[in-house]
């Protein structure tokens, strides 16, 4: 079996095992897995309303996945997508509600603000890594909580002690009456176009520019890259900054599209952590991220139908997602099994 086939088989096998274990958990807990999975299916594809909302759910997942994947390609683990996304969310909501501008300026400005906020927050981690050798995993975890509390305090201030910002103006909104009508009043918005554009941007940076080549080179072997005359530190900072930009845009999707404001959060949104799963499943490639985001976004939204239609807590889907991450991460053992299997076949 060629390496390429194995690389594609590992995530597929992981998904299948995840779904099987999920079914076993349902049986053990006294639920009916057939009913559960059909409720999940209807929740995702049941009618145009569900499909619209599923796509809406996939949108921030694509951007969070891109953020994690982009950093991974330079050998960095950006576990701080969550914090960068929260700040992007806040920045977009603020720009969207504080100014009155024509749409052609206002909407791009709000998106830019979100990208800049996320990029700045990730830049801090990149800078600390490059200058002080602070491991980016720990730095970004700490920055996540810092971002959460700062965002909550700012929202409280902006709203004079309230718990959410004003609604973003129509001129900065991603919402679309056309998409709405098309999908039976779902909350689908134009954000999906932004997300798919960013998929192309990531592909272009990595595959078509010298800078992208350098970023990948640092990811493959930073000593070799250094020896070839590339500045490892500069590339680390740049990679984190671009990664944070994607994450910040993910927040803008929630601010300008789905919710239309930013509100005080008791805890994390979870999108940033799910982004790790998305990137991992998509093998850190732009196209892979689209597939990963589609799978996890669909599962997450479809799960909301499970308590009503099948009486099963929606957390079963989070269990399945966590298991899939375990299996993909443990890909080594699946690879060994696959190689043994294919050797046996050749021997016959």
């Amino acid at each position, binding site marked *: 079996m060629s390496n390429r086939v194995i690389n594609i088989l590992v995530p597929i096998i992981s998904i299948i095992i995840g779904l099987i274990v999920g079914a076993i958990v349902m049986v053990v807990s006294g639920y009916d897995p057939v009913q559960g999975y059909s409720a999940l299916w209807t929740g995702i594809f049941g009618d145009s309303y569900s499909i619209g909302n599923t796509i809406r759910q996939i949108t921030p997942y694509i951007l969070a996945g891109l953020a994690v994947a982009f950093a991974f390609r330079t050998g960095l683990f950006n576990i701080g997508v969550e914090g960068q996304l929260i700040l992007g969310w806040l920045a977009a909501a603020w720009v969207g509600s504080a100014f009155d501008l024509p749409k052609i300026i206002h909407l791009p400005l709000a998106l830019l603000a979100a990208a800049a906020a996320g990029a700045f927050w990730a830049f801090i981690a990149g800078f600390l890594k490059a200058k002080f050798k602070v491991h980016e995993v*720990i730095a970004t975890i700490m920055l996540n909580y810092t971002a959460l509390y700062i965002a909550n305090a700012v929202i409280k201030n902006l709203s004079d002690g309230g718990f959410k910002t004003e609604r973003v103006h129509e001129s900065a909104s991603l919402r679309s009456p056309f998409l709405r009508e098309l999908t039976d009043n779902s909350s689908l918005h134009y954000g999906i176009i932004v997300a798919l554009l960013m998929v192309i941007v990531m592909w272009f940076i990595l595959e078509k520019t010298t800078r992208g080549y350098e970023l990948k080179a640092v990811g493959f072997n930073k000593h070799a890259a250094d020896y070839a005359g590339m500045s490892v530190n500069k590339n680390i900072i740049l990679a984190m900054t671009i990664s944070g930009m994607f994450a910040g845009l993910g927040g803008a999707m929630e601010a300008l599209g789905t919710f239309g404001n930013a509100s005080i959060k008791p805890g994390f949104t979870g999108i940033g952590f799910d982004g790790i799963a998305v990137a991992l499943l998509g093998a850190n490639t732009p196209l892979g991220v689209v597939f990963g985001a589609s799978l996890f976004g669909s599962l997450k939204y479809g799960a909301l139908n499970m308590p009503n239609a099948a009486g099963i807590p929606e957390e079963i889907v989070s269990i399945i997602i966590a298991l899939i991450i*375990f299996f993909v991460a443990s890909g080594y053992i699946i690879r060994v099994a696959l190689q043994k299997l294919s050797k046996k076949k050749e021997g016959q």
Partner: protein
Amino acid sequence: MGFLEMLYFIIPSAILYATPLIFTAIGGVFSERSGVVNIGLEGLMIVGAFVGIYVNLEYASTFGSATIWMAMLAAFIIGGIFSLLHAVASISFRADQTVSGVAINLLGLAVSVFLVKMIYDKGQTDMIDQTYAINRFAIPYLEDIPFLGPLLFQNVYSTSILAFAVAFGAWFIIYKTPFGLRLRAVGEHPMAADTMGVNVNRMRYIAVVISGALGGLGGAVYAQSIAGNFSHATIAGQGFMAIAAMIFGKWHPIGALGAALFFGVAQTLSVAGSTIPYVQDIPAVYLQILPYVLTILALAGFIGKANAPKASGQPYIKGKR
């Protein structure tokens, strides 16, 4: 409120908030010292909190006054078992330790909330009976000491005493026993340890299970002393704060103890700051972000250099240089 009353209020409360952090941070020290990064402590605390509350609610009538201890024991054991997933993935299957830890966090939360909904048919449990919660008491004679009495001995929690004992016990085990020497060797230079006949993977399995058990214990203590019930938001960042305490304490049990106590003060001030003179003028957000910012500064070398064990984060593959 006078200065002394202020201290008599802040210090016992800080110790209360620090206690779960101490257990979990010490767990983190064991795991990282053996070379396995455990980002999953948050998820392990969540599992521990759920198990603790479940045992407390269901078996309080059976165990009576021993309830909290049985609940903590159950969380200790289940936490250890749950962390085996992290151990198998990151030690035997050579998974990325950070990814596996993230999966533990997601899984811990999902399984716990799933079980709550299955058992209680709602998103959160009832409050535990206050008589079976972890309650404070006064230590006879010691409480009469001027100044120190009201500061340390009038409002004591038995779990806090246990936490101090665990911290000093961990220091003894890690620095004064052959087991501890092997543990540190495996985390610094696994190949050298292997050459000397230490079973690297076995040591790492033991360390990860200890960290899971202590993380579960920390969660059960938090749930029974501070939260009082279990919901998806009961443990919100305490696990990550424990990781911060471990780093701020420079991967040393006593350092982690000190850092956890310091973070306990910050948490007390951010929760109850509005009633304390001077502190009420500081916006709560500064106190909330303080532990995390300090940890970053410590790592950057502004507050003494914090260096992780050398081999932490890398799977050990026999025969590979």
